[in-house]
């Protein structure tokens, strides 16, 4: 089971790089959907089969439903509605983004070796969590399109969720509900605003949102 968890975490990291390096908007959304699916399977992989509780199964099912199905579907709908140009237009080039992604993973791994997590967890868990957080912030900061910024925010939330899995048995249900609610409602509202942005500005380039300044 430990190997399966390691594999899932590795695939999560790889999908993060996919999001950083791809040129197509739909691939970004599929990347974050794949991440969501992997994260849904992660709580199942972290515990051996006999120890699965209703809580674990519910968490896995809920995560997959929200992160892998509902949210990507919603984002795809937003793309169609807004008739956006399907290219990601980054302010920082793709190669530089991928290089920064590697730096993020290196930093996260260095931190992970220094901060011990209580309980039995693969060391890759903390590294993956922090990598996703940093890569999500990277996407938020370097991408101009509003929809991609939402994808970056989802990656940030995925990283936080992975970290939350280390305390699943210690801090009860509320937290998972809180995280999922956060993503769902936050992205939902963001999606609606994105829709309005496109209507008003005829583009989803948030670099154009520069009317208000000092």
């Amino acid at each position, binding site marked *: 089971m430990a*190997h399966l968890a*390691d*594999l899932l975490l*590795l695939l999560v*990291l*790889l999908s993060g*790089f996919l999001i950083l*390096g791809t*040129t197509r908007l739909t691939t970004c959304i599929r990347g974050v959907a794949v991440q969501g699916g992997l994260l849904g399977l992660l709580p199942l992989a972290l515990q051996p089969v006999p120890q699965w509780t209703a809580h674990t199964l519910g968490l896995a099912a809920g995560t997959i439903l929200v992160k892998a199905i509902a949210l990507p579907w919603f984002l795809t709908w937003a793309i169609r509605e807004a008739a956006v140009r399907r290219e990601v237009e980054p302010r920082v080039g*793709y*190669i530089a983004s*991928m*290089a920064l*992604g*590697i730096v993020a*993973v*290196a930093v996260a*791994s260095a931190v*992970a*070796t220094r901060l011990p997590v209580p309980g039995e967890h693969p*060391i*890759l868990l903390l*590294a993956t969590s922090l990598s996703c957080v940093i890569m999500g912030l990277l996407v938020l900061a370097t991408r101009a399109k509003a929809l991609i910024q939402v994808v970056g925010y989802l990656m940030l939330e995925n990283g936080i969720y992975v970290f939350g899995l280390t305390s699943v048995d210690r801090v009860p249900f509320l937290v998972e509900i809180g995280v999922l609610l956060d993503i769902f409602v936050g992205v939902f509202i963001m999606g609606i605003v994105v829709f309005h942005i496109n209507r008003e500005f005829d583009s989803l380039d948030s670099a154009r949102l520069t009317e208000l300044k000092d």
Partner: protein
Amino acid sequence: MTGWALAGLGAMLALAPLLPGVAAKTKALLTGRRGAPVWQLYRDLLRLWRKGAVYSTRTTWMFRLAPVAGVVTPLFATMLLPLDCRAAVVRFAGDFVAFAALLALGRFLLVLAALDTGSSFEGMGASRDAAFASLVEPALFLGFVVLALGTGQRSLSAMLGGDAGTLSWGAGAPSLAMVAVSLFFVLLAESSRVPVDDPATHLELTMIHEVAVLDHSGPDLALLLYGGALRMGLFAALPVGVLVSRAGLAGPLALGALLAGTVVVAAVVGVLESSMARLRLSRVPQFLVAASVLASLGVILQLLT
């Protein structure tokens, strides 16, 4: 024992031209054709050897040197690989640097020969070739770094499943998987295959490696083609050596496994060629950097475990 190592060297030299044939045959079969037989390259080499060479009056000795170097450098590099999983014919600490250096030297001389013709068309192909090769070098070295970290050795003979076969699949699996995929990308780049370069293209402006060897003819071209096949064999042997643990096998079985593995890799290349198109030229660097990214990820994972 050097006995089997020499046998391995001979086998690789003899069987290298089979690999491009396997790739082409796979691609043909998957696209619904019968295609040329797998040993077609042998016939081409023989045919070209019997022809005379035509040299442009503007070329110098460099133009005649490059094909020879194109065979000699991969030959020496083959001597550094532990084909029978015990030891290579030549081994010393840090020989992986020599491995990469030899192959780079061969490519360098080829680029110089292309520039030697004075034709801007070949210069274009050579410059693209050189650019892509330089982008993929880091991936190759990072892959070697992972192997060195994993086995604690600095010689290729030990790193690629040598004396003790110390690379276990248990803990080091993720990083090895990353390295294997990264080395496969390196193979695609170095042997100019899809998605980096399409060897079957007939549109001049989309050629990269084809253009660099455009002016060579006769025996020179035969040497170049053979050298290219040998390079493909070498780069195919790397991921096989990483993925397949041949520690417990006896000499001939290990050698056979490696050769069979390279044939499988060639077939996978053929599958890839039949299923995707070459990437847009401006997107190729991203693909190559992805290889380096995968390899660096392998390094980080190796350091974590």
